[in-house]
């Protein structure tokens, strides 16, 4: 089977734009989750991880005219896509087949909720009606490059959307349906999403505390990230340096409840086991787990139990980076894949912020202080969505020959 390598990374989140900024902020152990500033909502006392740029600033960064109709989700997607494609030296298409696969959940909702009465009652802003659905957001991201992609599609599995986009992309490469796939996810903060999570009463009114005994919920975030993936053969042919390998991945379903995770973390367990089997690795080979770790009472306990089932009493270093970025929902799978890859290649484990007390039923504590100068061979990252859409994947260092 063809070896899948990563040759480009792009990221934008509350931490800022670009991989260097992201690494710097992670090492500084400073959360970017703050009281809501940009989103117009009555719940502005809730903390969230907002991307520190207005739509106007994002348009300027991308040279997009003020009167061009585009959603914030697509703007952020374009920023991350450009960075990833530039690192992978994908400037013109030549004779490669290239696919774009992106995850998102509420599409253009951030504009729809502003213009909804116009959509219903008059002709104003009607151009945004066609930008409402998830697929339209991905098409708009594709249009931000001069590239003519050979396939553009969108995966919508809630908070595991971006992870599943990476998996779909890998399958395209393995079946020879594409030479290169740019996969990731994007989601901007919207009143719809904020209120949705608020009605489920799983938002913490302070910065979240993943894996802490007294955790109270999650903070929403926003952002986008993309990974350029190709076969090792394609990278050699194009003369680009691979960053790491995608060595295994699996998608499984908890099939327990419409929103809640099962207490024993069945879906998460199956996803992690599946990823290990796909990578032909043993649990002891994993040197770091970037957990889904949202900070809700339900997720962290369920995920923790699943880890204990996979790793027994030898749980590798674990951290959730959600206290840095907030939970970026559909983008989180890609944002955390990028963070995991940066950890792998630069030899650090980001801290799990705000932790003070272990969860009684778990046998491990997360990493509370950034670990630097560590040699990581394989990192595992988890992304779980409502409805039990659980996905895990493993990135591995490329051994120097």
């Amino acid at each position, binding site marked *: 089977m063809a070896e899948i390598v990563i040759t480009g990374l792009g990221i934008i989140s509350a931490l800022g734009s670009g991989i260097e900024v992201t690494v710097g902020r992670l090492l500084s152990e400073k959360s970017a989750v703050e009281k809501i500033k940009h989103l117009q909502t009555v719940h502005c006392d809730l903390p969230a991880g907002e991307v520190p740029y207005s739509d106007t600033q994002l348009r300027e960064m991308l040279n997009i005219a003020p009167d061009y109709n585009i959603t914030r989700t697509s703007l952020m997607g374009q920023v991350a896509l450009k960075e990833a494609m530039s690192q992978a030296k994908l400037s013109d298409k030549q004779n490669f087949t290239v696919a774009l696969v992106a995850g998102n959940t509420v599409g253009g909702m951030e504009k729809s909720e502003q213009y909804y009465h116009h959509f219903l009652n008059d002709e104003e802003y009607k151009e945004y009606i066609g930008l409402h659905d998830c697929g339209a957001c991905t098409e708009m991201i594709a249009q931000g490059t001069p590239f003519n992609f050979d396939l553009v599609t969108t995966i919508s599995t809630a908070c595991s959307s971006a992870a599943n986009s990476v998996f779909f992309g890998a399958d*395209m490469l393995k079946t020879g349906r594409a030479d290169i796939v740019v996969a990731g996810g994007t989601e901007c903060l919207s009143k719809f999403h904020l209120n949705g999570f608020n009605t489920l009463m799983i938002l913490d009114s302070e910065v979240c505390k993943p894996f802490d005994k007294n955790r109270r919920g999650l903070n929403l975030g926003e952002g986008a990230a993309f990974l350029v993936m190709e076969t090792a053969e394609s990278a050699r042919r194009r003369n680009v340096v691979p960053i790491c390998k995608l060595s295994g991945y699996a998608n499984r379903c908890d099939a327990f409840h419409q929103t809640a995770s099962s207490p024993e973390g069945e879906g998460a367990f199956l996803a992690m086991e599946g990823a290990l089997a796909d990578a032909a690795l043993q649990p002891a080979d994993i040197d770091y787990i970037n957990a889904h770790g949202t900070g809700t009472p339900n997720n962290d306990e369920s995920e923790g139990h699943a880890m204990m089932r996979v790793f027994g009493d030898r749980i590798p270093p674990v951290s959730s980076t959600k206290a840095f970025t907030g939970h970026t929902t559909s983008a989180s799978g890609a944002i955390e894949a990028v963070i995991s890859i940066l950890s792998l290649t630069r030899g650090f484990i980001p801290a799990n912020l705000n932790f003070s007390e272990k969860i009684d039923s778990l046998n491990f504590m997360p990493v509370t202080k950034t670990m630097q100068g560590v040699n990581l061979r394989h990192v595992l990252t988890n992304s779980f969505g409502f409805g039990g859409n659980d996905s895990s994947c493993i990135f591995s260092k490329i051994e120097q020959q």
Partner: protein
Amino acid sequence: MSVYIQSAAQISIQEPLTEKWFAEPHIPAGNFNLSIEPDYKSFIPPAESRRMGRLLKRAVTTSKEALRKGGCEMPDAIISGTGLGCIENTEKFLNAMLDNGEECMPPTAFMQSTHNTISSQVALTLKCHGYNSTYSQQGFSFDSALLDAFMQFELGKIGTALVEGHDEMTPDYYNMLGKIGYWRKETADTEKLRKSKGVGSISGSSSVSILLSDKLNDNTLCEIKNIVTLHSPNKSEIWNVVSRLLAKAGVAMSDIDAVVVGLSGDAENDSVYESVMSQCFTDKPVVWYKHLFGESFCASAFGMYVAATILNNRFIPKHLLYKSDKGINNVKNLIVYNHFHNKNHSITLLQSIK
């Protein structure tokens, strides 16, 4: 590796959960068409259905029916395509939010507004822990789901899969899409859609569940030889892709009995099909289906379903043919071709197993 369509079940503007439309189609009378709902109580116990919107009930029902007809208890994968997901619940939550100033909003409606609720609900009902995914790429959503399943068969990851297309239409969303040219302004019937091209089509509301397997059984409807996709292609690219698809499957162009396409009466949409037909499939009979099932983001799922039904019967009834006064017998090979706004295109080759 072979991939077979074992069974399919639909709920649409045709009589639900039957293939009655094949012999006696119901001709839509207007532009806004709601699906005909079966009695869900015989498929879903009330305790389970109380927190399912209409689309979820439909998805669970068509999934159960497809599994029953195909003789499969537990699929290895559940993969859906939906353009808008449970839009009725999305609107309910959005309206509550805008009307109540972000207070007292219904959690169940939010929970159902995410598109993956559909595949997840089917998994929850079946207690299926296998692969579970959802695609939302406008009129290419079902095609993406089918491609995903097909690749996983190729890679030997799965032996069976439910591949689904689900979309519902609400009066508000119908009106909104009408503002950007999705629907005919005047009431359109089959003849109008065929003969007078204009802006827009008629709307449908549709659910199809298709069971795929890598093994033949007594119920098998047909075989999927391959699916290929393109984005914003030029004409020569389509021709090249079709040639490679046929060569790889060992099928000659002269073996293709008909092409199943998403002609809808919308001038822009139809011109793409007509140009590809004249370029790649000159003189091949054209099968259409949107005049019976309406246009929706997952309408292409009906293309696949109609083609599988034709191959199972080895017959194309006259009412499915775009230009012909009599049906066609002994059908062996079909191409199903779909595009959305001339962006994503998919071409699937299906073959009879009889």
